[in-house]
């Protein structure tokens, strides 16, 4: 289980690197698909079927939207930094990543180990079927215990649709 998990995460990392480094935007987006679908399988391994379903469908739809956008515009990534600027950027990135990783490694032992989290708030949720009547505990959490969050989440989607329709207007200003 742990081995396959680590292998899948490594696959995700490779997919991410290819997605960022490829010169062709379309193949970059398809490599991004590797990351998303590997994440779906990881969700299944971690006993999160709800997440796997949502992730696989939303991944597909996101890829469709991205591919539609790229096919309408251009596939080539012509932006490449050269010379001093590239060196400086890389240096800054490596420094930051190094410090971040180092700090994270020092706290790793203070966090609860993988596989046995300390439950506090969710102890009550584990018995959610008796309290809400829903068999699916995730549904019980998102629509009963924490339904207010879900209202916010639906509102985010509503907001972004309103924003997209507003941004893609042909004319913004009356003259």
């Amino acid at each position, binding site marked *: 289980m*742990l081995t396959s998990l680590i292998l899948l995460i490594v696959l995700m990392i490779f997919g991410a690197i290819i997605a960022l480094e490829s010169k062709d935007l379309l193949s970059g987006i398809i490599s991004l698909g590797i*990351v998303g679908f590997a994440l779906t399988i990881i969700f299944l391994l971690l006993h999160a079927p709800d997440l796997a379903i949502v992730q696989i469908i939303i991944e597909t739809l996101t890829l469709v939207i991205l591919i539609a956008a790229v096919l309408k515009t251009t596939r080539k990534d012509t932006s490449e930094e050269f010379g001093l600027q590239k060196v400086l950027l890389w240096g800054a990135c490596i420094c930051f990543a190094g410090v971040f990783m180092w700090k994270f490694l020092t706290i790793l032992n203070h966090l609860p*180990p993988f596989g046995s989290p300390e439950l506090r708030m969710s102890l009550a949720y584990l018995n959610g079927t*008796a309290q809400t009547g829903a068999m*699916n505990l995730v549904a019980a959490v998102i629509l009963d215990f924490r339904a207010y969050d879900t209202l916010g989440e639906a509102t985010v989607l509503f907001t*972004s649709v309103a924003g997209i329709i507003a941004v893609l207007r042909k004319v913004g200003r009356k003259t």
Partner: protein
Amino acid sequence: MIESQWVFVLAILLFLIGLYGVLVKRNLIKIVIGLMIMEYAINLVFALIGYRSEGTSPISFNGAEQNAAAIFVDPLPQALVLTAIVIGLGTTALLVSFAVRIFEKYDTFDVRKIRKLRG
């Protein structure tokens, strides 16, 4: 260090790769891809946090009375990831529509050719 903690390290590595994409890449679509990778990494961290090694999926097929006996994985991080995925979809779609609109104005995705604003 406990061996299994390495999964967290790998997830953070994924997050940093996404951050690298956002900060270093000079192409609008690549920046969007970087942000999406960061989203994935965070969702992965949440899912890893909720996992319990002897747990099962948080769905009871047998009814309430047998619930107490079974051990479920933590449903709360899963609910949070569900929310985070949808929020990520909203932001990504908005970013893509901005990128397309900018392409329409400038005919390129390259940030350096777009920069009209003074810093």
